[in-house]
């Protein structure tokens, strides 16, 4: 049974990978087949992942199939394998479920696309890799899949590679995440060097088990830093790159150049969560230095800064997808805060809830864009409530979930859990206060977006927005239902999810609100949302008469607004601080090449050509004549020699007869003598 189970678990990541592999060999014209293949594979994979989730539903169940030996050199054996615990099972179920509906949505959204099949191939590749990340039982396999996810993301962002901006965005995403990956790789090597294993759990010898952890905590390195802290920081940098934390966040808004389903799948729901997942997975290492150790502190503060920064920037954006992208960055910051302040369960709950409603938001945004004929500027929209009622409904649900509308939306409970976790962090109130501000801003900018897009009157009368087809709407409703229903498992009343992640049984806890500060926090969250939404409504209600009207806040904030609109100048800063020096350096090298190497090469070329001429001349004059002469002579001799080969059988026979005669004569002569 165990082996059987093991095989089925392997199928979860391998089926989409296989589908992607097969699609890679299908011609573009077979796009329909490719899409069916991809969706079918993912559907089976989803069923298996849900089955796997069912297997670990009983509290405290962890299944670790025996790892496979990948290769052995010397006495070192590298093992890779899969791991099924509540963390990975929940993630796998979420990824397959959300991805399945995004796939189905893509059927409609990408219908007119020429490279339809290729798109599904990339999507399948991405899903397989992501599932591998989630289910991996070793840091090494996780890293390999991590890189594969990066590759798929690169391919998908640059899907419209004819568009220079898309190609540039793809490269930017790839290179930026590569910086983080480098740190991840170093951290991994360091961990391996100290513990001798990369498996998370290995019957007591794993990386996350007591033996390795104590050795990691015991060793120190430069500046008195423990190895665990140093490695954690490196892993954190890797996670920052993937999850778009400041300062490595710049690629994420640009990545919106990819098709909207891709944005929904990769840059909202799954891939960006990989960083958070990594930290959650290796949380035992992070927490070795205590709750206020340098690793966790750094995590918390980076999360806090990111959350606030992205929320501020999101306020001043006009592109519907960019707003959502910054919102994603901000929400990832929230998760980081939770991780840094010890709320792993809160972070994971927020991650999953966020995956649902952010995928929902992106897909609805896609629906809006689709309906508005590829228009992405919210200033040119407005009044879509009437034209696209269904999209409006699901968008509203998603928006309220993200903004944290109280009680019925999962976002409210998850955010509340994060705030709860941050509030009681012994390392200070900073992250809590910042998170509260960010939550307020979240409610503000989401309301702004909803108001500008769906309310008021249409600001571009010449466009005729229309509702999207059923194949796009159905996934939206499913995801909306998920965004709402998920709230059930995360309320403080019945904190099932939190206990489950920690491997404990959940109990219905009626007195939860009576615990210290619980009611206060609840009230605070409520107030934050109300204020944010209220302020936004106050500012933006009827504020935008036409698409040319400047934003009301713009005039009030002036320069700061433009600062926000340019994302606080990160891109410009990178341009000046990194790219320009590099370009200058490259220019210098170019100059060097032109001034010195090119002439040198010219000289060498001339020398070689001269040699060649001399050789050729000697060849033609000396060798050819001489060699040809020898050959001709040989041929003439051969001709005359071969004339003795008469081809006549009797001639040969006669020769044989002569030979026999000579032999006989010799024989008698010798025997006589």
């Amino acid at each position, binding site marked *: 049974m165990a082996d059987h189970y093991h095989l089925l678990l392997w199928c979860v990541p391998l089926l989409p990978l296989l589908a992607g592999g097969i699609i890679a060999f299908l011609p573009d014209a077979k796009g329909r087949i490719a899409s069916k293949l991809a969706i079918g594979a993912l559907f089976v994979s989803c069923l298996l992942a849900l089955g796997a989730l069912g297997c670990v539903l009983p509290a405290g169940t962890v299944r670790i199939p025996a790892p496979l030996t990948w290769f052995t050199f010397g006495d070192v054996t590298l093992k890779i394998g899969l791991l099924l615990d509540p963390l990975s099972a929940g993630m796998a179920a979420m990824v397959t479920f959300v991805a399945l509906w995004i796939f189905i949505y893509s059927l409609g959204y990408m219908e007119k696309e020429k490279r339809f099949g290729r798109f599904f191939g990339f999507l399948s590749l991405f899903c397989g890799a992501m599932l591998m990340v989630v289910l991996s039982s070793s840091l090494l396999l996780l890293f390999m899949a991590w890189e594969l996810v990066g590759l798929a993301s690169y391919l998908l962002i640059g899907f419209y590679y004819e568009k220079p901006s898309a190609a540039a965005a793809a490269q930017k995403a790839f290179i930026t995440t590569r910086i983080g990956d480098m740190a991840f790789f170093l951290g991994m090597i360091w961990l391996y060097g100290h513990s001798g294993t990369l498996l998370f759990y290995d019957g007591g010898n794993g990386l996350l088990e007591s033996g390795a952890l104590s050795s990691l905590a015991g060793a120190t390195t430069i500046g008195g830093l423990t190895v665990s802290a140093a490695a954690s920081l490196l892993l954190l940098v890797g996670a920052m790159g993937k999850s778009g934390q400041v300062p490595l966040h710049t690629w994420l808004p640009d990545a919106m150049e990819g098709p909207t389903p891709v944005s929904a799948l990769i840059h909202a729901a799954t891939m960006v969560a990989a960083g958070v997942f990594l930290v959650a997975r290796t949380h035992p290492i992070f927490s070795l230095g205590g709750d206020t150790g340098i690793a966790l502190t750094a995590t918390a503060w980076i999360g806090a800064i990111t959350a606030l920064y992205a929320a501020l920037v999101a306020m001043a954006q006009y592109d519907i997808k960019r707003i959502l992208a910054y919102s994603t960055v901000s929400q990832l910051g929230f998760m980081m805060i939770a991780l840094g302040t010890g709320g792993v369960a809160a972070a994971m709950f927020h991650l999953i809830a966020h995956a649902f409603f952010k995928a929902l938001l992106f897909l609805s945004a896609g629906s809006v864009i689709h309906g508005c004929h590829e228009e992405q500027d919210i200033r040119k929209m407005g009044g879509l409530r009437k034209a696209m009622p269904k999209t409006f409904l699901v968008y509203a649900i998603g928006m309220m979930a993200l903004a944290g509308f109280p009680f019925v939306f999962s976002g409210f409970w998850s955010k509340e859990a994060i705030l709860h976790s941050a509030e009681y962090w012994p390392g200070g109130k900073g992250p809590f206060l910042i998170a509260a501000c960010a939550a307020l801003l979240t409610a503000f900018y989401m309301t702004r977006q909803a108001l500008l897009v769906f309310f008021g009157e249409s600001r571009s009368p010449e466009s005729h927005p229309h509702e999207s087809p059923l194949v796009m709407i159905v996934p939206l409703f499913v995801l909306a239902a998920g965004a709402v229903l998920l709230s059930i498992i995360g309320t403080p009343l019945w904190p099932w999810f939190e206990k489950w992640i920690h491997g404990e049984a959940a109990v219905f806890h009626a007195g939860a609100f009576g615990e210290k500060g619980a009611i206060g926090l609840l009230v605070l969250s409520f107030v934050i949302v109300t204020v944010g939404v209220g302020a936004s409504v106050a500012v933006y209600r009827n504020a935008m008469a036409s698409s040319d009207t400047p934003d009301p806040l713009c005039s009030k904030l002036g320069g700061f607004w433009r600062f926000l609109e340019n994302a606080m100048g990160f891109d410009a800063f990178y341009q000046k601080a990194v790219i320009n020096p590099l370009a200058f350096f490259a220019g210098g090298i170019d100059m060097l090449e032109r001034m010195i190497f090119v002439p040198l090469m010219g000289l060498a070329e001339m020398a070689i050509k001269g040699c060649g001429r001399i050789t050729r001349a000697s060849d033609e004059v000396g060798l050819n004549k001489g060699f040809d002469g020898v050959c001709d002579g040989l041929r003439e001799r051969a001709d005359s020699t071969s004339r003795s080969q008469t081809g006549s059988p009797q001639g040969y026979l006669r020769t044989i007869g*002569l030979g*026999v*005669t000579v032999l006989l004569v010799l024989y008698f002569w010798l025997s006589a003598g």
Partner: protein
Amino acid sequence: MIPLLILAPLILLAAFGAVWMARPVHAALMLALTLALVAVLYLALGADFIGLVQFAVYVGAVAVLIVFSLLITRPGDEAEEIERRPRSLVTGLFCTLPVLAVLAYTAVFGSNIKLIPWQPKLSIAELGEMLFTSHAPAVLALAVLLTAVMIGAALFAREPDKPQDDSSEK
């Protein structure tokens, strides 16, 4: 001794005819005569069975086959068919005569076996018993060989465009 003395010159004469006759058909008929005389010699030496088999196989089959092939492969030009004395006769003799000398020398003076003359009578019962006991593998091998030859010759001689005519040449 007497049949040998009578037959030996006849055999040699016929064989010489087979080698020397200008017309191929004459040579072939002389070969048939030679073979028939050799068969008679076998009979005279007491090897009745071998003699009759020689007659049936060589005269009845091989010789007929040879004359038949000669008829089929007639060049059409009468002059070409008749063989003038070959130019290579000298070389041929030069090769043949030493061989003959050595063989004859060995035949006349080389035999130092002490021979006891006797009058053997070939018993086919004994011959048959040996054939199917101690020599059975050889007989089987021969059977396979003959089958292969029959099929092979039929295939060889088959007209490429008229596959029905192969049997007429057997």
